[in-house]
């Protein structure tokens, strides 16, 4: 199947377009189409993972214009893994949304699919400018999704989010302009080659562009000085959207990982690996701040948003250590944290729904209607996200701690473990307030609908599965990390004229 690589972009695009037909029709057909299409996306993503696990990097040249001139989509282990993660997360949040959240505003399903298209495109593209275009596609869809359902709080958080991201896009374009102006190409593999043989006089300009690009990706992935939009936007977004947004910060981290290993990797001469030492300190500060934020949160959703911030810091610390062991650990941790924090957003919404007036605030109030079921889900989610054994969070964090070298250990170990402790205290406190200090539940209150439960189980249940199959998964992430740290093979596969895979 030579066209397999482009399917994760085309399928959501056509599904999203199909949602525009008969917009005032009943919800049911659109739900079915959306669910079937997303389930199909999971199947395609698994096929991509299997294809990429052979170790070959293959590309798809659109319109058969060969690189470095044409636009290409590239499939390697990392991008296949990310597409797979996105599709599973999307299926879970979509199943939850089909229980009624999609009816609160118009066009939920269409926007959801277009957002998936943008995310998948960003993971698959091998071209800098197309990275920008797909970022815009996913952002534009996310602007409207964030405000789905309306309300004062959402419009204001939405305006902040839109204004910040517009400024971010402007900076992205400036950085692209500088990179194009100095290297004369937009193909990532080709750019990596050109940088190695760049005129030293132009290196300062290039470095400015590269730093600007780092700021843009930092804004998307919410590292320390650029995180301010995240807690508020995530806490006010509707639950299924917030769950899908759990992947959005990871798009930024993926972009950092891709660009600063491939373009500014080992072969980039004076600029080789210049970003990683900078990232290290920002990542540590992000972890510390996330820990404080988790303790100070007074609302379950804000708490999860700060837990995402901790995970962003943890992932970036892995990026900046820049070794096979650390990258492999971070990819495993990324799978875990994305799915579990997505599941926790859904769970917070389900709890808020059943508590009536108390909502998601961490105060004693009415008990939930189904304390056993939600309590169990909360327990699994909390154990997993905080990183207690035997669930996947512990494995991910242990792998990452293990990857640190003696010089890095005092910083990473102390901060990561302290932030886990903060998470543990905060999750324990809010759990006992919500479930144990609760008054009588309303027996007639809303209950979990089957599709909500399916979404919750899919996302939170991923954690035990991830730790059960930790062996094969870490083998795959290890191979991905090795592939990522070998930009020569990537360049060879894309640019050598004899390379196969082009179609």
């Amino acid at each position, binding site marked *: 199947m030579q066209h397999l690589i482009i399917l994760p972009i085309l399928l959501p695009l056509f599904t999203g377009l199909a949602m525009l037909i008969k917009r005032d029709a009943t919800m049911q057909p659109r739900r079915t189409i959306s669910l079937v299409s997303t389930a199909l996306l999971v199947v395609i993503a698994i096929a991509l993972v299997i294809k990429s696990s052979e170790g070959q990097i293959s590309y798809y040249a659109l319109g058969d214009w060969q690189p470095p001139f044409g636009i290409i989509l590239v499939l390697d282990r990392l991008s296949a893994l990310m597409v797979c993660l996105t599709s599973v997360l999307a299926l879970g949040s979509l199943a939850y949304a089909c229980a009624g959240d999609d009816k609160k505003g118009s066009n939920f399903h269409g926007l959801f699919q277009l957002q998936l298209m943008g995310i998948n495109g960003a993971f698959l593209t091998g071209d800098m*400018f197309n990275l920008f*275009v797909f970022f*815009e596609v996913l952002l*534009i869809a996310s*602007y409207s999704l964030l*405000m789905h359902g*309306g*309300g*004062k*709080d959402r*419009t*204001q958080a*939405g*305006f*902040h989010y*839109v*204004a910040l991201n*517009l*400024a971010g*896009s*402007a900076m992205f*374009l*400036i950085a*692209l*302009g*500088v990179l*194009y*102006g100095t290297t004369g190409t*937009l193909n990532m593999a080709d750019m990596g080659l050109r940088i190695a043989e760049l005129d030293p006089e132009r290196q300062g300009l290039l470095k400015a562009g590269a730093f600007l690009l780092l700021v843009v990706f930092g804004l998307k992935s919410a590292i320390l000085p650029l995180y301010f939009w995240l807690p508020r936007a995530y806490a006010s977004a509707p639950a299924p959207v917030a769950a899908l947004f759990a992947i959005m910060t990871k798009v930024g981290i993926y972009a950092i990982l891709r660009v600063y290993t491939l373009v500014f990797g080992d072969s980039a001469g004076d600029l080789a690996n210049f970003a990683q030492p900078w990232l290290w300190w920002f990542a540590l500060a992000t972890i510390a701040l996330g820990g404080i934020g988790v303790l100070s949160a*007074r*609302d379950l959703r804000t708490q999860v948003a700060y837990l995402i911030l901790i995970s962003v810091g943890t992932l970036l610390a892995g990026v900046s250590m820049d070794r096979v062991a650390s990258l492999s650990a971070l990819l495993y941790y990324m799978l875990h944290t994305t799915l579990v924090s997505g599941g926790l957003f859904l769970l917070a919404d389900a709890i808020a729904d059943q508590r009536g007036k108390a909502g998601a*605030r961490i105060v004693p109030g009415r008990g939930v209607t189904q304390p056993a079921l939600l309590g169990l889900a909360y327990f699994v989610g909390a154990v997993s996200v905080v990183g207690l054994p035997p669930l996947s969070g512990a494995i991910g964090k242990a792998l990452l701690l293990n990857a640190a070298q003696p010089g890095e250990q005092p910083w990473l170990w102390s901060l990561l473990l302290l932030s886990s402790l903060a998470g543990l205290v905060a999750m324990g406190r809010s759990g006992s307030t919500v479930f144990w200090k609760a008054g009588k539940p309303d027996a007639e209150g809303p209950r979990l609908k089957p599709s909500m439960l399916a979404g919750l189980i899919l996302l939170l249940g991923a954690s035990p599965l991830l730790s059960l199959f930790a062996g094969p998964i870490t083998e795959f992430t290890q191979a991905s990390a090795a592939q990522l740290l070998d930009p020569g093979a990537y360049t060879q596969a894309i640019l050598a004229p004899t390379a196969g895979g082009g179609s």
Partner: protein
Amino acid sequence: MEALFATVTGFLAASGLYLALRGRTFPVVVGLTLLSYAVNLFLFSTGGLTTDGAAVIQAGKTHYADPLPQALVLTAIVIGFAMTAFSVILAMRVRGDQGSDQVNDQRVEDAKEEKS
């Protein structure tokens, strides 16, 4: 020509940045628009400034302009235009929902504090 071009781009970017940091939604939207104009001009110049250059290969021509930045800037203009329209509507919605055009409306913040 280069100096004039650079000055204009820089001035646009500076004005855009100043306006984007203002406290009301309308100047912010105008500022972001100016910023995107500056970015478009900047992108346009990344292939080098040429006059009378052909963008498509023609027989007997030796003087060419780089066509790629023109294609990039076209994409950027389309996206920027759509986003400006969106942010104007959004700013109006914020004004309607909150009864004020402050980007950080203190009243909303206070109401939220009381609630939690």
